[in-house]
């Protein structure tokens, strides 16, 4: 059974790591979590990004955050990737299954997955 003692152990481990985590994220992944996004399936998409970014040790350079309605509800779930000095990339009709390619090819590899972007998907 999970106990508060176990949480204390996590705290002790994390307190040494906090300084490392506060580096400015080079890339920011923003998932639309308004009513439209949630209804279209954004919750598992967000969960997949949080899991994969952390499991692959990318949390130091990539932050995953939530936002409200981006205004293109028919394309939800919508995920935007921001990177300093580069144009924003908008992924639409995302699913948890599509997340691993975005993590691998875009977040790690630096090359956006064109076929998932708004320019190449029908509403």
């Amino acid at each position: 059974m999970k106990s508060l003692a176990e949480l204390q152990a996590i705290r002790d481990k994390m307190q040494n790591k906090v300084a490392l985590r506060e580096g400015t994220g080079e890339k920011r992944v923003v998932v639309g979590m308004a009513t439209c996004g949630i209804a279209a399936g954004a919750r598992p998409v967000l969960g997949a990004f949080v899991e994969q970014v952390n499991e692959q040790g990318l949390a130091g350079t990539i932050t995953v955050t939530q936002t409200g309605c981006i205004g293109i509800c028919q394309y939800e779930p919508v995920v935007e990737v921001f990177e300093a000095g580069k144009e924003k990339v908008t992924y639409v009709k995302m699913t948890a299954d599509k997340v691993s390619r975005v993590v691998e090819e875009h977040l790690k590899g630096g090359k956006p997955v064109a076929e998932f972007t708004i320019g190449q998907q029908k509403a």
Partner: protein
Amino acid sequence: MKELSLNLLDIVENSVKAGATLTEMLLEQVGGALTFTVRDNGCGMDEETVRRVTDPFYTTRTTRAVGLGLPLLKLEAEQTGGTLTVQSDTDPVHHGTTVTAVFHTDHIDCPPLGDVVASLITLIQGHPDTDFLFTHRLGEQEVKLDTRELREVLQGVPLDSYEVLQWIEGYLREQYQSINQ
């Protein structure tokens, strides 16, 4: 919405936007009725706004003039023969809003509750600096999470740290498992 847990996630977002420092969520199954309550200490709404919140053509957002969160919850509750009530107060001391939806779970149109744990994790990941008190009463037993207790233990370690989120998920899933046994 496919699951009531998604409505829960959606409605609590309103509380966070209203500046709530504490949002309480209570799910209570009594006989054939599930009562779904979200109570916050946010800024509250005036009477005119409370009257309009279940109108899909009323919204506080600016990207477009449609807001579907509460109207969808109302529709889903009423489709099961249930109700939705919204109480709110803008009093400087006792401000806040309470949304209560009653579902008749034996009605064929009642959506499944779905993955409540995933919704709670999503809320904490998105809003690590606000507090949530979640209680799910199932007969004599209950599943409970109070982020204020966790914050006390964590002493400044953020609630949205991945290790902490994983612990919270395990903590909640274990509570559900022990009830199911």
